[in-house]
């Protein structure tokens, strides 16, 4: 066996070992992007979710403020599907979003938000 054939044989052996290892791994994992066992097979998944990016408006006033603050984390139905709530209840919700959830609401913005969502909430009840 000359040096070249020895080298080729080694290469084939390496490929075989690597290949069989990959095949074993493949067999354990099922098809690429899937895992299986005990009669169950799971495949990688990908979905597209609706953006929920409708806004209350983008003016420099209160509606724009609600759009850029409240809608950071949730779509507007969260506000529009609420029952009639008092201003105090809205203030409590907004304060919770500010202090607990970290919504970037400045203290001097709270009253404007309370006024806007209270009014909006009242008008939604009459639809």
């Amino acid at each position, binding site marked *: 066996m000359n040096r070249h054939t020895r080298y080729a044989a080694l290469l084939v052996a390496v490929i075989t070992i690597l290949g069989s290892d990959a095949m074993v791994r493949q067999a*354990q*994992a099922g098809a*690429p*992007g*899937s*895992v*299986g*066992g*005990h*009669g*169950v097979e*799971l*495949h*990688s*998944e*990908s*979905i*597209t*979710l*609706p*953006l*929920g990016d409708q806004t209350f408006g983008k003016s420099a006033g209160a509606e724009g403020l609600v759009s850029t603050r409240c809608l*950071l*984390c*949730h*779509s507007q*139905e*969260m506000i529009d*599907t*609420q*029952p*009639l*709530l008092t201003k105090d*209840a809205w203030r409590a*919700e907004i304060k919770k979003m500010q202090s*607990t*959830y*970290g*919504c*970037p609401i400045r203290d001097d913005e709270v009253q404007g938000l309370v006024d806007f969502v209270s009014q909006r909430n009242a008008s*939604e*009840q009459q*639809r």
Partner: protein
Amino acid sequence: MTTNGPDSSASSNSSIISRRDLLKTAGLLGAAGIFLGRGTTAFASNLVDLPFANGERSLARFPQKSDLILLRTRPPLLETPFDRFDKGVFTSNEDFYVRWHLPAIPTSIDVSTYKLRIDGHIKRPIELSLGDVLNRFNPVQMAAVNQCSGNSRGFFAPRVPGGQWGNGAMGNALWRGVALKEILNHAGIQPGAVQVRFGGLDEGEMPQTPHFLKSLDIEHAMNGEVMIAYEMNGAPLPMLNGFPLRLVVPGWYATYWVKMLSHIEVLDRPDTNYWMKTAYLIPDTPGANMHPGQKNVTMVPINRMVPRSFITNLRNGAVVPLRQRTIVRGIAFGGDTGLGSVMFSSDGGQHWSSATMGPDRGKYGFRQWEFAFDPASPGEFTLMAKAINSDGVAQPLAPNWNPGGFMRNVVESVRVRAAGA
């Protein structure tokens, strides 16, 4: 663990009461004509009117889901239209309601790299691949109702803020997975462990938003019933129901059923994170009931479910044939234990009779029931169903109230009219 095949699902077409009885009274044909009533009806225009103020909703189709009632687009809150519960005891994966707290939800899961991390007060931290979860532990399965803590919140009087659900934030599935106990034993719990905390892949938009974490006492986590599911109803979970792994806590509210489960942490102290200490608290009173404004009420984390029952084939305003048997059909569940019985009333709760029970598909699941209603006089009838669980706990006739809008389980009623044939 209870083992039920998905093929054991009760068909809505098969009657519990003998078919001969039905045919004798032509009740089957009578029943076929009474589905069109008013109430939580999906109209052709894609609108749904839940029966409380500001209850107008539209239907929306999200990935891997059927047309569901849209409560919020982002993060998704999707309610199961109530007529779907008449189809049988198992709620299909596409009909199953959806509830997420935080907006950054992974939209892509690679099953070959997904990891479940187990750490905290254990012998050594471990990471399990999905292949490990599927292959290294014995599969178990169990039927169990998953119900949002705030299911039916829209019916609270006085109303409370929060997700304004009708009665469709619940579903029953056959869950298949591995017992949490086996995984915790594999990890090796250290002496002094108090609770086990669960986290998923969802996150807030703001760094300050508290991660959604829920905890169970160690004894509960190790009871052999709590499981990590990789299938529901014989198929992988839909992404929006927590693919690829979800905690299943039979008999407990869905807030504990953490979706896209990725982290289990054994704690040597009680969990004080926001979602256990501040959110999801109920008054520590029978039925989680208190008066609005009541002071000095001890609040505790929500926990065990209470019994409920529903009429599924008749709606408010339905007309039923006079002096003919109409099959009234519904579902019921016992809450934190099995269902004992279902009682039926056609006079607003003055008199009760036992309903006929359908097959038992598992202690923690829905069970169908039927009652042959034979109105002897024309006019209005208030139909009611009352579930009594195997511990003897019955649904109350008066609704509960608490500021979170949790644990509603009052006896429901459906008003129908009997008219001459």
